[in-house]
């Protein structure tokens, strides 16, 4: 199993980064789904660890998280699942800060770094390659950065359209793995035209060395094509997969087919775009 997220996203061909929530509707199912996504061409899989207050997620994923919690998913069971996976695709854990903070037995007077270490240690041990913590802005991320460095786990940040240049500078110092570029304001749902916004966002990050994966609203191959044409190294897609899981019919095949469609879309984008020199 490769755990180098950066390599996975910045490979020769554009990367597909699908998201699903672990434990939705059960951990056993998740294993199947992850395998299906990998088979469909996923380069990195974002696997959500459910938290009861998902303030950064849209209703689709919020409902998936609720199903997962009702099915009894806990951080420990999540890690056990990741350990048991037999795929050649790095896993990025997407969850909220409080779960990291509560993992392990904290002592009064512990620093944040000390409180976070057990989670990161366990994640690394289980084979998690990176973390995305959407409620942890760069401003509060020093202790986790430090813990991640200790265990060689990537800490992936999200860049938003609203992010100021001043904040970009701060983030650039902390960034590892890849940058998750939120192409637009808002949350989920198919977007009619993603390329302009994507292009604009990528322009601001042109000089960053880490690869950029663009997400929010990708549901069709055509979206992936446009995103890659606009210059992204990877395409992130979540709601489209979670919807299929929620529908519950013939899920693995559908996931695989959709992953294939998006991956192909991304590949099409790479062909039609003029590759930058040296890439």
């Amino acid at each position, binding site marked *: 199993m490769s755990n180098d997220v950066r390599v996975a996203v910045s490979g020769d061909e554009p990367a597909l980064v699908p998201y699903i929530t672990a434990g939705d509707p059960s951990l056993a199912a998740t294993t199947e789904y992850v395998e299906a996504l990998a088979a469909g061409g996923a380069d990195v899989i974002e696997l959500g660890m459910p938290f009861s207050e998902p303030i950064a997620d849209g209703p689709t994923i*919020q409902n998936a998280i609720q199903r997962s919690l009702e099915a009894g998913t806990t951080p420990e069971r999540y890690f056990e699942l990741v350990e048991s996976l037999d795929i050649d695709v790095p896993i990025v854990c997407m969850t909220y800060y409080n779960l990291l903070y*509560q993992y392990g037995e904290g002592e009064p007077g512990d620093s944040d770094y000390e409180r976070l270490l057990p989670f990161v240690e366990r994640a690394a041990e289980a084979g998690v390659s990176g973390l995305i913590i959407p409620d942890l802005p760069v401003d509060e991320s020093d202790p986790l950065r430090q813990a991640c460095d200790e265990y060689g786990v990537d800490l992936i940040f999200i860049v938003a359209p609203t992010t100021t240049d001043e904040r970009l500078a701060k983030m650039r110092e902390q960034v590892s793995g890849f940058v998750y570029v939120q192409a637009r304001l808002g949350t989920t749902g198919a977007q009619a035209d993603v390329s302009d916004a994507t292009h604009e966002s990528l322009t601001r990050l042109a000089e960053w060395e880490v690869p950029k994966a663009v997400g929010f609203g990708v549901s069709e191959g055509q979206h992936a094509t446009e995103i890659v044409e606009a210059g992204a190294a990877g395409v992130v897609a979540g709601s489209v997969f979670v919807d299929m899981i929620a529908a519950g019919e013939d899920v693995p095949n559908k996931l695989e087919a959709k992953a294939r469609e998006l991956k192909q879309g991304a590949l099409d984008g790479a062909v039609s775009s003029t590759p930058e020199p040296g890439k």
Partner: protein
Amino acid sequence: TKFGEYGGQYVPEVLMPAIEELTDAYERYVLDNEDGFMDEFRERLADFGGRPTPIQRADRLSERYDAEVYLKREDLLHGGAHKLNNALGQVLLAKYMGKERIVAETGAGQHGTATAMAAAHLDMPCEIYMGKRDIRRQRPNVFRMRLNGAELNPVTVGRGTLKEAINETMRDWATSVEDTHYVIGSIVGPHPFPRMVRDFHSVIGEEIRAGIEEKTGDLPDSLVACAGGGSNTMGTFHDLVPDEEVSLFAVEAGGDGLIVDDEEGVAPHSASLSTGSEGVLHGARTKLLQDADGQIVESHSVSSGLDYAGVGPELSYLVDEGRVTPVNVDDTAALEGFHRLSRTEGIIPALESAHALAFLEAELGPDADGEHDLGEVIVVNVSGRGDKDLEAVIEETEKRDLDAAPSMEVLYE
């Protein structure tokens, strides 16, 4: 941005620029009174809100408890609760910042109605997110918000209550952050909200200081306020925190008891200060009701306004520092406190405020154990009026067959 280790800014990146912009605006307009912001705010609070609210000696309670019990009458503020202080402050600030739209979440509807009123008063379009289930349960507050011209967005995801409404409002804000301000309803959320909301409410404590000095020539011995998120609590305490001789009691909702059911993820209470542990919720580090994994548990209180699993980070800090004493009373005691004030003082308090009153009974009443020293002069913040709670109180009272409660048979004869 922190109170000791509490507080901070744990929010999605997309919102951080708005939070930074708000922090800047808070510092300029609220702290430095730029463009006379605070002058206008205080003037509108007086003319539109009805400030100052009275400090009233409670004759019957003073007799019962052999003390000088004073009530801070926030129930008389426009809208029927202290909530307007903050809503008016934030909507006015949004106007100064050039925002063109207001969003807010509401659970029982008190913060929503206050925000809708403030937005109508200041001519700002306003949308309120409210859980579907809460909409059905809080019919009069739904009417009031709509009458004040606010759009009401029903939240159907999950259980359709406050938690889901907060998530949905955050989501709206993430989409609309450039022209929209999110009016958070308590001293929670990321910095600068806890400080800013506290500052808008701190007029309560300032008026207590002035009023009680006029009446008694001295500071009170103790302040008592109920604590859910904690906005009326910090509003009451803030001005007197430096006066160490004044004891500060934050009365939480003890609900049905203080034991958390980890298996079910349910706490039969809302006493985060008394029993919670440190964690991060809705943008801030604070004391929380959570299970061993860090999942937030479902809280409970007979008073929907106290029914929240978190609490303002500043209160967590002041509790750890020993400056604020967290205490709690259960649902039944709160209901008895509600009836006692209604019957003997002619003031029908909000169920939230009834918790603060029940604490006096627990400490000083005929059957009290008297664990804490409240001193001679006690000020209780009556944070709101109970009109909104009538149906709930009747129902909960009948379940319990309370002695103190009047019969409502006349309605069914």
